[in-house]
């Protein structure tokens, strides 16, 4: 019997170093992480997950959304984070949206998963 907790599903162990920072349950936490990082750190995360994203989506599609095991949930959250940093990495080349100043949206309702 094993007592270790699998952080991510088998086959995605290479992404485990990103779990602590990026596998967060709410968009607010993910956005805070985006703003707390340098653009180089965002690019590093993006470059790590992007080549694995298609395989991750196929893996996650095997589950019903409300029955995702904990390790698959974390993988899903990494993909949400990839989406959240994609504009910063691919368009803005900086963590913050240019000319957005102090603008910020609070999320008042979001899906459970």
């Amino acid at each position, binding site marked *: 019997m094993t007592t270790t907790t699998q952080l991510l599903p088998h086959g995605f162990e290479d992404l485990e170093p990103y779990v602590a920072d990026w596998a967060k349950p709410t968009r607010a936490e993910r956005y805070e992480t985006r703003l707390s990082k340098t653009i180089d750190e965002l*690019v590093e995360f993006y470059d790590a997950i992007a080549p694995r994203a298609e395989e991750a*989506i196929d893996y996650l599609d095997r589950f019903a959304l409300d029955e995702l095991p904990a390790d698959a949930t974390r993988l899903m959250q990494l993909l949400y984070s990839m989406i959240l940093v994609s*504009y910063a990495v691919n*368009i803005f080349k900086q963590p913050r949206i240019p*000319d957005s100043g*102090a603008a910020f*949206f609070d999320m008042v309702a979001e*899906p459970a998963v």
Partner: protein
Amino acid sequence: MTNIQDRLSTGKGKFTPMYPELGTDPVSYDDCISEEFFRAEREAVFERTWLCVGREERLPRPGSYFTRELPGKLASIVVTRDLDGKVHAFHNVCAHRGNKVVWQEHPQDETQGNCREFACKYHGWRYALDGKVSHVTNEGEFFDLDVSSLGMPRVHCEVFAGFLFVNLSEHPVPLRDFLGDRILELEAYPFHLMTERYGFSTRIHGNWKLAVDSVCEWYHPPYVHGRFIHPDQSKAEKMVPPVDAYHYDVFRPHMLTSVPGPPLLPPREGGAGDAAQDMRWVYRLFRAGLFGPDDVPDIGPMPEFLNTGEIDSWGNDQFWLFPNLSIQIWARNYFITYTYWPEAVDSHIYEIDMYFVPPANAHERLAQELVVDSTIEFAMQDVNTIEATHSALETRRQRQFQLSDQELLIRQFHRVIGDTVAAYEAEAAR
């Protein structure tokens, strides 16, 4: 012309001359910076017009309720579904000594839940779900108390197409009369299928009408959002649809604009290709973008009231419900509401709520996430522009503004607000 401009050009002429009552003169923006106008507008518009406070899905069962703190201390209300399923709204004030009845932890915060009755935290008076007093503690200690006449003050509340509207005046016109034939057609749309909600809220330091202005014209995208389109602005200008590809319609006090959108990606076959630092690759990977998911959920046939401007490659219809609500119905079968709540002449709360058919699996959920994030990235740029505009208007060094044909709805919107305030003041003076 570029490819997209060639493809979508209609050769239609200008829209504004079709509405001679609006004229083509420059307009004043004093209505956005005058304290006096702000006070009049609040009385004439917000205290007597039907205002949307959310979707009916927030009241899923008998006994469901939620509170709203309408910004600018406009009102503090409770919205409920009673045990017979009927929807009620009332001011959140106890009939005993005026305490706020429904709240948790922080009196200023909104709350929601399910109950059979409310109890005031102060002296235990209880209220039924219709807001009427159902029990007075130590009733015998009072003098000539007519309990049956007591309650939290009623707020007129009606439901249209699943949208909950309240009206703070004593004797409002019926909601359906206010909405009129064109808006009533929205009832044919299956809003109720789109229950996956992503809700956002922010405070903008600018007049609320400037925020409305910023999203009812299609002149700004290559400038405010140029980087999303192309890093080179002169190229971005050529990559947006031509001015005659859009559609506008005004039907007082409401109005409509329709927008073209990109074609759907071909059905998923094989993969998205090698990973790249390129949004086009991200859009292919998740099969979604600013205009919605590329795998569109089936919601039945498209109702006839949509895309009446017959736009090729139609993207969405934005119905502006006077005064402060936009319902955007997207070709890819989801909808967004934008709501603007003035707090002061130079501040408002801006709410964006996006509603999708609940995703069946991970890839549908991820596509929604990309649509949501794209929308918010764009909206953040609009927000900051409004603050820049307001701070410049406040200097009062320019008093007249030039509006092009693409800004027809702005001309109409300020006109209707101005007429509504003038009519109210004329009536009050009589």
